[in-house]
């Protein structure tokens, strides 16, 4: 014999957007966790490093870097390197941190717990890594190392945002599939999927964020005409709106898969150590 579900008057009165509230709550406490001296020091290095590299190049050649060289350098340093490293340290511990800290059980027993944990951590990773990358961009432009660098500030801000959104969602997959090896697996994913598969001119690179970002970079900065014919295959032929949409779709798909895996996964008590 079974009884019907018990009414819970308070909890049955739901907030207008409970999913958003739970995501914001998790993002808030993940960001609070990031405000530690070691993480802030790492962020400071991330902000200064691109400008230091550009300044060293300027010092070497004795003049500002011309856009044809400076823009790709800036792209490799910020939307690729700074964003990737920031996301690796913020997104990879998605589940492992919770298991190690003993918080996983307390989050997972909430109605919106696992979804909130995934999306809240993703949001925190995007905000943290995006803020570091935008600060690095501002410093690089203010340093005046690249001729006309200020003209590409808006383009780079969008590339940073898309890079953070897409790659944070991508790194959510190793984080939920192999939580205890997530950092190593995420580095592998970055190298094999984003940089190896992303540079293969075949169907497989259509599923990478790097192809979309490269394509947007050359389209929005006018570098497409400067690319040698043999390298034209490394960028997509479709228009910028298509590339932006592709990153958004990839982000949604990666997060949906990660969510499904996270809802399905069970962690025996022995995993919490």
């Amino acid at each position, binding site marked *: 014999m*079974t*009884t*019907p*579900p*018990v009414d*819970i008057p*308070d*909890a049955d*009165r*739901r*907030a*207008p957007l*409970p*999913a958003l*509230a*739970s995501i*914001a*709550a*998790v993002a*808030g*406490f993940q960001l*609070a*966790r990031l*405000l530690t001296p070691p993480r802030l020091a790492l962020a400071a290095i991330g902000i200064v490093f691109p400008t230091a590299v550009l300044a060293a190049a300027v010092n070497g050649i004795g003049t500002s870097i011309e856009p044809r060289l400076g823009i790709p350098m800036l792209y490799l340093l910020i939307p690729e390197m700074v964003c990737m490293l920031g996301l690796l340290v913020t997104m990879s511990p998605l589940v492992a941190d919770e298991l190690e*800290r*003993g*918080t*996983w*059980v*307390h*989050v*997972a*027993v*909430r*109605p*919106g*717990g696992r979804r*909130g944990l995934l999306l809240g951590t993703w949001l925190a990773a995007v905000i943290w890594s995006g803020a570091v990358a935008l600060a690095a961009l501002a410093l690089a432009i203010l340093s005046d190392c690249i001729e006309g660098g200020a003209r590409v500030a808006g383009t780079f801000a969008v590339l940073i945002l898309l890079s953070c959104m897409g790659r944070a969602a991508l790194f959510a997959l190793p984080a939920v599939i192999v939580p205890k090896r997530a950092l190593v697996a995420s580095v592998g994913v970055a190298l094999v999927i984003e940089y190896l598969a992303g540079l293969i001119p075949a169907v497989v690179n259509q599923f990478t964020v790097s192809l979309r970002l490269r394509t947007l970079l050359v389209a929005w900065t006018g570098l497409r005409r400067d690319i040698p014919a043999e390298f034209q295959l490394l960028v997509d032929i479709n228009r910028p709106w298509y590339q932006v949409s592709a990153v958004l779709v990839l982000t949604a798909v990666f997060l949906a898969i990660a969510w499904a895996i996270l809802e399905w996964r*069970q*962690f*025996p*008590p022995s995993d*919490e150590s």
Partner: protein
Amino acid sequence: MIEVDRLVKHYRASSGAVVRAVDGVSFHVAPGEMVGLLGANGAGKTTTLRVLATLLRPTSGSARVAGCDVAIDPVGARRRLGYVSATTGVPDRLSAREILRSFGELHGLPADVLEARVETLVDVLDLSAFADRPAGRLSSGQRQRVSVGRALVHDPPAIVLDEPTSALDVIGSRDLLALLADLRARGHAILLSTHRLHEIEARCDRFVVIHGGRVVAEGSRDALVGDAAGLEEAFFAAVGEARGG
């Protein structure tokens, strides 16, 4: 309120062998009742509680929380369950108030309900002296009180506690058990696992003893103790019989 019926949970160990952590456990906890779940380490207590908390899926059998089957309606079960574990797992950088608020938001509680609930818990759990201090600076007893508050933030009708007093001193344990007695009096169903039998001997309405994933004894204190000197001796007798058999 809490119903466990022929529950089975098997794991596959890293060696490939199947571990029968829970093997046909049945019991129930009625509203306004506090039941002690007793067993040695590895008996299957934590696995049973984690199935009830929807953290693990049953291999077979069923578990229901306030009318919601954990396998069919896990979200409904989560909304009606408060879960406290031995590891408090409170975020070091957040204060008690922030923790209660954040976890209330994970339940989707409206802002007005949540604020009132947080203040009630701060008052009931006597957190006011340290409610705005980062949890990393709290004692283990204070952290456990915050952990209990986090489990009660949505006022669940069913409460499951896995060794909640293991990190507490005598006073902390007594206060927590007094709070549980109060919750029981207000109609909550409480299932409590512990190794500290003397603490709960006089407080629980009934006891369920499990060993090797099976229920080996069940009943009120008087029914279990019989001619034995106390609950601890009765527990050893029940487990000893199971081991011998």
